[in-house]
């Protein structure tokens, strides 16, 4: 069954056309990477799939259901982390997780599980305001994983992490992939991340899909890796000096 169907979706803000006619179909258990430079429209697209923004036109279905009619049902089966969330600073990691667990009717047992899974054991009594950037990303991931989501959306989960923490996070996601019960949509600026984690890669820029497919389908003689492919497609680099590309 298709987990996510996006059908010629458009979204614009005052003077910016953030998403211009994107369509995709994501089958169950697939890990999908959305790659693109700053301002490509990744967050806007993902937030529409998450039901947090309404498309101007076009259609989005999650497990065949639309957000308008089935919001309550769909909220229970997805997990997500936003590009930037600041949790309540004066709550501890555990209290924050308990709060979010209660939204799903889950208790302490599940909180313990995600704390262990995301390696936050040593920090579970710390106020979230005192966490480092990487620890905060882990907390966001822990919150996203609480409800055993069937579909998981992660918006730049590894931005700002040191290489070691990034590897840790990849390990968590790989174990998720091995269990095969979760569909993942991940946005990133990092080629290696897309290459090592994801089955399907979608390259977007200026609100449009430039190229999509499996990694080996995308590469050819002129583009031996994603970086080269990206330069070939857009004339821009992906994550180095992103401000230059704007």
């Amino acid at each position: 069954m298709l987990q996510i169907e996006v059908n010629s979706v458009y979204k614009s803000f005052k003077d910016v056309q953030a998403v211009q006619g994107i369509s995709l179909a994501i089958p169950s258990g697939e890990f999908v990477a959305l790659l693109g430079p700053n301002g490509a429209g990744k967050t806007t697209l993902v937030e529409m799939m998450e039901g947090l923004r309404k498309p101007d036109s076009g259609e989005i279905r999650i497990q065949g259901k639309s957000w308008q009619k089935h919001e309550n049902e769909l909220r229970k089966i997805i997990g997500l982390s936003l590009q930037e969330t600041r949790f309540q600073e004066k709550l501890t990691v555990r209290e924050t997780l308990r709060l979010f667990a209660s939204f799903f009717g889950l208790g302490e047992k599940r909180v313990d599980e995600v704390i262990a899974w995301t390696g936050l054991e040593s920090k579970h009594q710390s106020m979230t305001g005192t966490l480092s950037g990487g620890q905060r990303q882990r907390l966001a991931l822990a919150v996203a994983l609480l409800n055993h989501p069937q579909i998981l959306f992660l918006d730049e989960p590894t931005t700002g992490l040191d290489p070691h923490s990034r590897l840790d996070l990849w390990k968590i996601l790989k174990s998720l992939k091995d269990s095969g019960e979760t569909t993942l949509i991940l946005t990133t600026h990092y080629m290696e991340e897309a290459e090592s984690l994801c089955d399907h890669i979608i390259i977007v820029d200026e609100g449009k899909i430039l190229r999509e497919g499996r990694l080996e389908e995308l590469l050819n003689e002129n583009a031996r890796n994603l970086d080269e492919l990206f330069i070939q497609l857009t004339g821009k680099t992906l994550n180095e000096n992103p401000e230059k590309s704007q």
Partner: protein
Amino acid sequence: MKSFKSNQLYQLTLTQFLETIREPEVLFWGIIFPVLISIGLGLAFTQKTESKFHVILVETQPTELDSLLCLYAQPEQIEGKEIRTWKVPDDILGNTAFRFERKDWHSAIVSLKRGEADLIVTDSTGRMQYHFDPHNSQAQLAYMKLSALVHSPEASVTTTAAAPIRPLTLKGVRYIDFLVPGLIAFGIMSSILWGVSYTIIERRSQKLLRRMIATPMKKSNFLFALMFVRILMNIVEALILFFFVWWLFDIQIQGNIGALLVLFMAGNIAFTGIAVLVSCHTSKTEVGTGWINAVQMPMMILSGIFFSYHNFPEWSIRIIKLLPLTALTDGIRSIFNEGAGWMEIITPSVALSVFGMLCLVIGMRFFKWY
């Protein structure tokens, strides 16, 4: 059965509560500061203090006042100026002190403009002449007291009054009795407006609201939790305030305590509604501050917290009485000081609750969760 601890309303309330009490500054400004203010104001207005009047003499020739000053006033040098102080003791109305200083006409006018002086005394062919702004009641009082004193320097107002003065020592007529219910009402308003609106706006700008509604959280639970915690804090604040004023000034609640609780809740509902309405759209704390001030300032001035609104023009009083803070303040005051009960508070309680619910519904209609 699902555990009580994994109930979302419980968790929302608990975390909101923890967050509030873990912020020491919030506790200070929300609870300790209002208590200090009321104690300060209470002490300032109930202590028997001397009334002081400052009189400037611009005389060319000595008048009857000068001979009296030689007899009764104490000369002293303050900052190189010669000042004479005439103290008039009075057991009932409190002591009065007149400070006399000599200046030329020009500097006398400057002092008057600066509010340093109340009266200017000049002379005309050996007789005193008083100069003051007739609309200034302090100046008027200074004039009346001084002219009476010059007329009969030995007698005090109290002993010469045609009818004897009987000081009222009934409960509920002192200024502190007037002030405390006002401060309780004001405390409810500011704690809810700042507490609820600010939390909502801040969460929205942190994208936390958006993160929360991306879960199956019930939106109403989020607002209920905010309101519960605020009401709890308001009860604690009112109790602390009440304890201190009871202890220091022997203030008592003469009316029905149950009715007081109902009115208190109605006030909380009204201001929660306003707070949600005020914060329903913006994610900028500056805009929120603007709105909160726009709501709070007029009510703080008009609703009779610190002084009675009966000094305002007749036509405006009808409007003032419709303000939620006025309804709440008048209600609490009547229970504290007039012994009011259920009958008197039904109308304001219902009006406040309905108004609050209405604001809440409109606010929720336009509420931006992200």
